[in-house]
């Protein structure tokens, strides 16, 4: 659990408020390790946010005496400690609690992922429309900023970070980057955004994949999740040459394309942004989540299970029972009324 403490007056907050209201000192991030169960209530009233009952509402306490609320579908006993096991082949589900960078770090931890200082990273944000961030069409500027800061904290060199994507329609990518607020984040962090359409592509099987993507140690697929869509998979398509993707769609099924892409991109990690997401009617709901996985297809399947949505065609053959989950249980975070 992460807390924020004033180094002078020692007061502690769970929200990342930045500055102490008394002495105006910058708050320090305090990470605690233990989460001991000190209270348990079995809840049998369902609500919009918690449609499945019973569940267990827990009070947890860390080694510093901080206490917080935690929902669980697993039954614990008083005094027991909660631990979240890592699994590199899983889909990690975590709650974003104000601090996006911390939730990204937790997802990496749950996936047993570590970053090498010399790693070459390509960030692939979702950038599909010239809309402001509140539409939740594109990766949010806050999420992109948190990813960049996370990479800087992991000592990744600025020159080894690229932010790249391409437009698959007639809308110029510059306009989308500007309106979405993502361009400002790139410029603020001195990372020049790349239009993949203007760079080289390399033939791999029937796919033509951006050379920069293939040469990267890690591709961070920042998928803005959308209910009823395979957002992570769709964003991964952006590494393909536009004309190649168009012709493949004509010649093959989407399942074939996504499966070939999955096998060709072994260096991809998807971070599914699901703090606020778009419903199919374009209105916004709040799942308050982040997902992570090395499999964008599995991540899409898990997200649509959480939001209880009808499955897009390419996910229909992805069996949820075969997907391993780490972090929070699907039942703990499931939403209805979508």
């Amino acid at each position, binding site marked *: 659990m992460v807390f924020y403490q004033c180094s002078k007056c020692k007061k502690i907050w769970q*929200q990342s408020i930045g500055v102490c209201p008394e002495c105006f000192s910058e708050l320090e991030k305090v990470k605690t390790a233990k989460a001991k169960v000190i209270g348990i209530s079995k809840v049998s009233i369902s609500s919009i946010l918690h449609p499945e009952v019973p569940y267990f*509402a827990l*009070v947890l306490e860390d080694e510093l005496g901080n206490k917080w609320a935690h929902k669980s579908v697993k039954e614990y006993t008083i005094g027991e400690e909660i631990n979240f096991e890592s699994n590199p082949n899983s889909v990690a589900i975590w709650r974003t609690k104000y601090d996006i960078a911390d939730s990204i770090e937790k997802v990496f931890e749950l996936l047993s992922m570590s970053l090498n200082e010399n790693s070459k990273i390509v960030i692939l944000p979702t950038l599909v429309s010239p809309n402001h961030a509140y539409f939740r069409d594109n990766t949010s500027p806050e999420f992109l900023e948190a990813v960049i800061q996370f990479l800087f904290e992991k000592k990744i060199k600025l020159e080894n970070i690229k932010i790249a994507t391409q437009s698959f329609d007639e809308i110029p990518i510059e306009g989308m980057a500007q309106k979405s607020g993502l361009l400002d984040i790139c410029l603020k962090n001195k990372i020049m955004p790349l239009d993949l359409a203007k760079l080289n592509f390399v033939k791999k099987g029937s796919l033509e994949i951006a050379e920069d993507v293939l040469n990267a140690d890690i591709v961070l697929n920042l998928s803005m999740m959308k209910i009823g869509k395979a957002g992570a998979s769709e964003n991964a398509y952006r590494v393909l040459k536009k004309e190649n993707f168009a012709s493949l769609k004509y010649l093959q099924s989407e399942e074939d394309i996504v499966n070939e892409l999955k096998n060709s991109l072994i260096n991809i990690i998807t971070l599914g942004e699901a703090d606020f997401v778009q419903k199919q009617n374009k209105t916004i709901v709040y799942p308050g989540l982040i997902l992570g996985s090395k499999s964008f297809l599995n991540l899409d399947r898990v997200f649509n299970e959480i939001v209880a949505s009808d499955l897009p065609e390419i996910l229909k053959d992805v069996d949820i029972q075969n997907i391993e989950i780490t972090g929070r249980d699907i039942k703990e975070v499931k939403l209805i009324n979508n």
Partner: protein
Amino acid sequence: MKQKMYIKGVGMTKFDYSQKYWWQFAYDAAIEALKDAKTGISEIDAIVFTGMSSAAGGEHQTHKVSFLSGLFKTNVPIIEVPSVCGGGGVALWTALHLEGFKNILVLAGEKLVDNKSEIVVDYILSAAERVMEQTEGMLFPVQNALIWQQYMKKYGGSMDDLSLIAFKNHSNAALNPNAYFYNRPMDLEKINNSPVVSSPLRLMDCSLSINGGAAAVVSTEVTDIEVIGSGFATDYILTFEREDITHFKATKLAANMAYAQAGITPKDINVAEVHDAFTSVELISYEDLGFAEEGKGGELIRSGKINLKGEMPINTSGGLKAKGHPISATGLAQVFEIVNQLRGKCGERQISNPKIGLTHNIGGAGGSVTVHIFKKI
């Protein structure tokens, strides 16, 4: 309060599931209070309104002050002070601390229950913190169940004590024509056997979400009821971030302010309306309000001292538990009860000659608390 303040009139609607508009509950209660005060709307110099329910039914009216201006055909200042379940008390506190006005109408109206329970629970849940607690399943019964569990661990409280509180409040409500459970007392066996909603709290430990309105006219003009103490304190919205998770610090602070202002001690109180959103909250509040020592709230309910025929009856109206809890209207309905007890107008549930009464109104799970003390002149 920098000046002496008095209650000139009170009013409330019956608490029920009728489907009037939110403003009709407020308006009907206001008319009763104005009539009781023998004061026409033209003599009202300001209005303080509280409510949270206009989002219900998709109405989403957020300019209630203008709405009320149109209803009352007045152009006086109208202030809205939402503070969820504690709204009525906070509205009263605000009115009492406004200077330069002779007569102030304080009112609340809630039509909260207008949909299936999952939706209504969701409306009410908006009074809790979303990111850290709502998402983690902390509905209000859940927060209070966990607080009560911590209390039991520390002091050894008993569910039987909570049953006695529910029984007492249902018995009182059965005598109150404005209460939802009027003429319908509840026996102990039913209370004990009610289903667990969030362990260890049972359905019969929970108050009743309902619709209703309540109002009061406060005045600088001397009347038969003086407000001698007015305390207001807040506490963190994250329930388990607080220093003490077995008691409500804001109640202690608000009560101490009110007692100090009134120049009295808890022993001087003859009758009280205590915020029993859950039976456990009532028991814990006995201690926070100074009616019982810490850890001894159970002894107080078992002693019978706070029953209708006891030394200091608590929740003669039936409380939130059995009169009903229309969120923001609750605090003003408490004032209605205490004023009428002090005036000797409570019919079958009237207690013997009370002189000083107290109201205690909580918003959320202890996040905003007011305590008011009233004296019969």
